[in-house]
């Protein structure tokens, strides 16, 4: 269709034109950011559930070492769990895959692939992402990457079993699942590069008229910073992945020092490599990656808090600057994961200092969010409950990062359950709660219907309790010195005896958490068809996705006409107006 014809058609019913798209172009190989966002959302939620289930199997073993896994024990296969009793090899596979799946296949795809894709164009008043084809390609790199990871459970020796960190030489000599892991990662990295280029270009180039940077919603800012992190931090892991692939497939020794002796046999490799090289390259990604896990979550929470306190965010500018500074600093703290690899004073001082510095912007953002509550007229709907719970939960996770960031206290705490507790508080009751908050909040935008508040609260309260039930005792165990990644949860160790009884408690909480998700899953699917119908702006929000587009937004192009922005993102309860809120595109 030529440009002039297009215009002629555009004047008529726009939607009619797109009904001609066959099913597979509309839903499978779609180039519409909204459909791609939903594809990401659905796939990633499945992975989230799957990652959780892997952990439940592990938690069974931790609570009751050596007892057959109930119900599914027989399905695990005799190579993994003869008689339903899990083998250590299998425990390690589950652990590595839980970490990998949660981080790379569930949470980041949800935050960036799903939320970012769906919301960024809508919030900046753009008809779509800048490169719709790349966007599609990004999803279609993600899915195979994920499937390769899943398939690796079925190769001889099973899936990768060297932790999500894949430290060589262990990962170099591991079974073939590790090769699959590496190939899967290369797919995922490609997907994320395509995505991040797309986001940055979209945010810089496609902002609606009048939407300058200090009028961007916090969520868009968080996506912008996140995209830069992904863009610049992932390639070094890709490089590391290529090197490890070479080590495993072509017999090189990038990570293999000379003179290795494995099970009494001298290893036949050239040697001369450096195992710490991998750690540098891995953490060069993986530290920024943890901020990829938290920044969009903070963005979601900021949107919801502004909306439900009915007042502007307090300290918008400091929050923006903090997010940018956080992103920048996150590139130069990575070796705080490596204090105990034999670091001298100079370099450890550098990394301790940067780590302490990077905690400051987090404190600023969190304080700003907390102070935003003051003077509000707070509505406690389900999205707000999850968003509020995020604050203290992230607080606990963040604060427990501090003793880890000081090298001397990290001596005792490194690689214990204290670390596991630290980061789960940030990612599970932190980020996952933000994800839940976002689902409840934007569901009406996607479907035109609201999710049930009653089921929502039934989801929230047990989840909050069980999350703490799982992760709080981890600090206790960590202080006692219980190492992570122990197949029997530390049952062999004397120093673990005093805190061992917590394992059963934590596992029970984990099973409780699973049960607590049932109302959510029911709510989600039932509301798609039977939820209460609502207007295009049920929360009386100000940002463009609510005020300039119908719910659901126009199939191709989002907006009936492109909005023109006249004011900041959070003009709630404006003093100079009688309205209770002013949409971003309201005429002055």
């Amino acid at each position, binding site marked *: 269709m030529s440009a002039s014809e297009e215009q002629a058609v555009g004047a008529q019913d726009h939607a009619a034109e797109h009904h001609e798209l066959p099913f597979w172009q509309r839903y499978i190989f779609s180039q519409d950011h909204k459909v791609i966002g939903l594809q990401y959302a659905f796939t990633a939620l499945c992975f989230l559930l799957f990652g959780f289930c892997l952990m439940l199997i592990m938690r069974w073993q931790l609570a009751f070492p050596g007892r057959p896994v109930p119900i599914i024990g027989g399905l695990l296969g005799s190579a993994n769990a003869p008689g339903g009793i899990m083998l250590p090899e299998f425990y390690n596979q589950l652990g590595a895959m839980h970490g990998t799946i949660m981080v790379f296949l569930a949470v980041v795809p949800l935050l960036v692939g799903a939320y970012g894709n769906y919301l960024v164009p809508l919030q900046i008043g753009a*008809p779509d992402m800048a490169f719709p084809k790349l966007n599609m390609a990004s999803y279609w790199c993600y899915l195979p990457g994920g499937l390769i990871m899943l398939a690796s459970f079925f190769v001889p020796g099973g899936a990768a079993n060297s932790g999500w960190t894949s430290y060589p030489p262990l990962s170099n000599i591991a079974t073939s699942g590790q090769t699959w892991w590496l190939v899967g990662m290369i797919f995922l990295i490609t997907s994320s590069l395509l995505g*991040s280029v797309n986001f940055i270009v979209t945010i810089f180039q496609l902002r609606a008229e009048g939407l300058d940077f200090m009028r961007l919603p916090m969520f868009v800012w968080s996506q912008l910073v996140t995209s830069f992190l992904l863009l*610049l931090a992932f390639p070094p892991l*890709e490089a590391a992945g290529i090197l490890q692939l070479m080590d495993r497939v072509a017999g090189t020794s*990038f990570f293999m020092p000379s003179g290795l002796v494995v099970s009494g046999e001298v290893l036949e490799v050239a040697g001369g490599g450096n195992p710490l090289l991998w750690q*540098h390259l891995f953490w060069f990604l993986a530290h920024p990656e943890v901020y990829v896990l938290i920044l969009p979550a903070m963005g979601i929470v900021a949107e919801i808090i502004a909306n439900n306190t009915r007042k502007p965010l307090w300290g918008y500018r400091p929050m923006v600057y903090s997010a940018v500074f956080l992103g920048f600093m996150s590139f130069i703290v990575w070796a705080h994961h490596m204090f105990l690899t034999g670091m001298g004073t100079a370099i450890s001082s550098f990394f301790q200092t940067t780590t302490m510095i990077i905690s400051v912007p987090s404190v600023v953002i969190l304080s700003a969010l907390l102070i935003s509550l003051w003077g509000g007229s707070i509505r406690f709907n389900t999205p707000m409950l999850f968003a509020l719970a995020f604050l203290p939960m992230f607080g606990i996770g963040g604060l427990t990062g501090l003793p880890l960031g000081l090298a001397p206290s990290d001596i005792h705490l490194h690689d214990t359950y204290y670390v596991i507790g630290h980061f789960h508080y940030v990612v599970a009751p932190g980020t996952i709660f933000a994800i839940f908050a976002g689902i409840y909040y934007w569901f009406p935008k996607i479907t035109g219907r609201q999710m049930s508040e009653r089921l929502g609260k039934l989801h929230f309260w047990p989840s909050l309790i069980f999350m703490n039930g799982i992760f709080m005792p981890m600090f206790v165990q960590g202080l006692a010195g219980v190492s992570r990644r122990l197949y029997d949860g530390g049952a062999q160790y004397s120093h673990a005896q005093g805190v061992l009884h917590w394992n059963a408690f934590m596992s029970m909480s984990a099973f409780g958490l699973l049960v607590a998700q049932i109302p959510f899953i029911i709510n989600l699917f039932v509301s798609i068809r039977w939820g209460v119908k609502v207007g295009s702006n049920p929360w009386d929000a100000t940002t463009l996705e609510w005020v300039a587009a119908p719910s659901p937004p126009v199939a191709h192009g989002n*907006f009936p006409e492109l909005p023109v922005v006249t004011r900041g993102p959070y003009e709630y309860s404006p003093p100079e107006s009688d309205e209770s809120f002013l949409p971003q595109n309201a005429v002055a």
Partner: protein
Amino acid sequence: MQIPYTVEPRPDTGLYNAKLGVWLFLASEVMLFGALFSALILLRTGATSWPHGYEVLNVPLATINTMVLITSSVSMVMSWAALRLGDFGKYRKWMGLTFLLGLIFMVIKTIEYAAKFEHHLYPSHDNFMATYFTLTGLHGLHVLGGMIVIAYLLGPGSKMWMTEPERYTNRVEVIGLYWHFVDLVWIFLFPTLYLL
């Protein structure tokens, strides 16, 4: 609805979408090769012995290849200039030449590799050979990728010149930026691997 700024630059950034996109992509490529250089430096610093590149590798052949790649960069910019002057015929000649030079580069590379294999020098031989094969191999893949895009632009992609000449010119500029970057990487690879 049409996506804005696919052809004309956005006033405040001064860029059209694809140009910003390719620069971002190149930034990520800088980090990719940066990590590999970092690995090279670290391994060499820690190595008990490390051969001088010129003792093991074929410097004359690599010098020729450097020349080939530099020439291909010039032919690439020349093709873009021709296109901006509206001379599609000349553009095709320059771009065809670029493709050809890419091909020559790959052929020489193959000869080089074959010679190494003949002497039983594989990546597993030592870390010097490992870095040599990994870095030049990855660089070769980039050349190959560029050649595929060039072939597309000269072949089926060239139809766009008839309908949207500006956009087509932009595409050539963008692939040009990529191609020069690949040249730039080689400019650093060549001395670090072959001459030091």
